């Protein structure tokens, strides 16, 4: 129906021409494809080619001795399976990501609920201040916190000292190093959760809340039975974003600046291990296998989130 209408209208506008899609050469028949092809080629070159090359590298030996990549099948993956350092790094990454993302969600959501009122004076300034940490480069964050954490002249222990508390060694101690780097991530990325949750809360319809109030529901009941279910898709998207980012960025940049994975291997995440293997020890094939593993793992996590209903509307 629609297409007939189009054809009719085009004939009406250009009475002396026939429809270009029905006659003429390749150019005329597929002109819409030609138009988008530069972008498609560009994207392919930029994303698909490196990814395929990465898969190829993960099946190759490329180290100091070989100089160039040589195919060696699944050797890298077999080595990964046996590599205890790899599994320990993966465990640490999972601890890091789950601890930091869950804290960010709870804190960010709580802050959003607190501030989600229409008429508070100066709320704009507060919001701006809250999202400030997010806009700082991770490298700078790492350097800043390294100084803050310094047990001798850092601000944190200086404050604790005023209260009569002898502060811990933070990054330098086996007991507090992992906690310290997680705290930095929470500090930097809670604002992201706050932003997402604020946006979500403001987009919720008012009717269910009004109805609940009329029915005499308590604040907690409203939160549990109305707000959370309505917010579920947004929460899932925000958490998925943070998990992906946590695997990619949070477990590398600032940690690398603050501890390089130490003391010992206490803060050595998968990213740090892959970086060391690839760029410091120049074993690019093996490092690629680690990266492919992470990619697959993240894809699986992403699928799980989709099933849990990130795109509920589309699926219904």
């Amino acid at each position: 129906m629609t297409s007939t209408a189009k054809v009719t209208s085009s004939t009406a506008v250009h009475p002396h021409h026939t429809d270009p899609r029905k006659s003429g050469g390749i150019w005329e028949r597929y002109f819409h494809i030609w138009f988008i092809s530069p972008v498609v080629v560009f994207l392919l070159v930029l994303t698909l080619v490196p990814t395929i090359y990465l898969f190829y590298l993960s099946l190759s030996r490329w180290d100091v001795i070989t100089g160039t990549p040589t195919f060696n099948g699944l050797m890298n993956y077999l080595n990964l399976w046996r590599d205890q350092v790899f599994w320990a790094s993966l465990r640490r990454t999972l601890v890091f990501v789950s601890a930091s993302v869950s804290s960010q969600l709870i804190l960010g959501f709580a802050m959003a609920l607190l501030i989600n009122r229409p008429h508070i004076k100066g709320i704009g300034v507060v919001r701006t201040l809250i999202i400030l940490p997010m806009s700082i480069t991770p490298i700078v964050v790492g350097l800043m916190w390294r100084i803050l954490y310094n047990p001798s002249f850092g601000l944190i222990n200086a404050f604790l000292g005023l209260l009569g508390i002898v502060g811990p060694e933070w990054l330098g101690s086996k007991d507090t190093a992992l906690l310290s780097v997680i705290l930095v991530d929470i500090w930097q990325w809670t604002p992201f959760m706050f932003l997402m949750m604020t946006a979500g809360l403001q987009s919720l319809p008012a009717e269910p809340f009004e109805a609940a109030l009329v029915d005499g529901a308590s604040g907690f009941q409203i939160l549990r039975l109305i707000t959370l279910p309505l917010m579920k898709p947004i929460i899932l998207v925000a958490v998925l974003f943070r998990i992906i980012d946590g695997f990619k960025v949070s477990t590398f940049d600032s940690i690398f600046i603050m501890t390089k994975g130490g003391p010992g291997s206490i803060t050595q995440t998968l990213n740090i291990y892959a970086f060391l293997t690839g760029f410091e020890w120049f074993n690019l094939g093996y490092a690629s296998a680690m990266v492919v593993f992470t990619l697959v793992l993240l894809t699986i996590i992403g699928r799980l989130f989709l099933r849990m209903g990130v795109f509920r509307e589309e699926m219904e």
Partner: protein
Amino acid sequence: MLRRLLLVVLILLVAAAPALAAPATEANIDWRQAEGASIIVAMNLHMETDELDAQLAEFEELTGIRVNFQIYPEIELHQKTLVDLASGAGIFDVIMMDFMFTPQYAAAKFIEPLGPYLNDPSLTDADWFKASDFMPALWDAVSYNNEVYALPFTVETTTLFYRPDIYADLGLAVPNNYDELWHAAEAIHANKSMDAIGLRGMRGQGMNVYVFAGFMRGFGGKFVADFPNDMTPVINSPENIAAADYYARILQEFGPRGVASWDWLEVLSGLQEGTIAMAIDASNFGPVIDDYSTSRTAGKWGYALVPEGPGGRHPSIYTHTLAINAASRQKTAAWLFIQWATSEDVQIERALRSGQPTRQSIWDSAAFREAMAHVGNGQWIDASVRSLDIVSADYRPRFEHWRQFGDQVGIALQSVIAKEQSAESAFNAAQKAIEELMRSAGYIK
């Protein structure tokens, strides 16, 4: 009479010659043979880089070659250059390279062997360039399988930094061995409200291992059974474990809190701020901490050789070098540049300010000694010269897989300093991991 006068003048001139290095214009080569070329040089964010940067106009005028410096912080420099070298793109013509990379990059044919350049009279005037003037340990440091792969650009060694005022106060003598070092640290810790000693705790073959290797060798320990003939790792030897235990305990008992994560920057600022009374670290901190414009403790420092142990005295060696990318398309221009930058006349100009020349003649020259005399009242130059006399290029063994080997030692050592495990269990674990590495890389069966 006139003849005698002439003779005296001549003798004086000959005697003064070593101090007056010949300028580049006197080299018997055609400096303008690559005129119009333009080279890209990847440099480390480093004091010496700034000094060389300031001299570039001179080179461009001499040769007609344009030089573009791309300056990166150390870690970024390694990444950028590795990507360029491994891909063979040839973006950088010259790279400033950590000398410990030489075996790795040479084996992978990433960098150009320099023998053909040094021996070609149209490219190098051997009498003017005087390659034999580079300190012998540095020449070893840039060689791999009897071929030279880079030219030494900076130099440093480890020395003991101490405070003569505090030593005098407590009646301490400058420590000559590790027992005396312990005793001094203990006395300072007991009597002064400052940390007695600061050493690098941060893991890494170029971090804690760089300083620790001197302790380890001093205690009689080794990295491998007999380098380079028998590469069996001997990391968990009793000597190595004793050295690790000593290194960790002297820091735990008399050092600053959080020292397990200290890298050289924290050591340097500890010295500048006067929060630590002693350190063993890079000699080139000397001119910085004794500089009144950058240091609160300027004028208070004494310098001595690192302590001696049953295994002898082992100061470190380090050099940033200039190497030519094998994939460069401007190799002649690149060679002219690194030759010029490391030549005597050009180096001495920088050395008077930065204090890290790589040529023996400069260390021996009156001008350089005078320029550095204010650092520890001449103690610095004395300790540096005597240390550089006894250093070995294989202070940290140079072979293709050293970095992974050394990093494993660094991880073990840091976990001992952070009290995560005992020296014995950490070094046993490191031994196992390193054996695995050496086996898979084919060094041992």
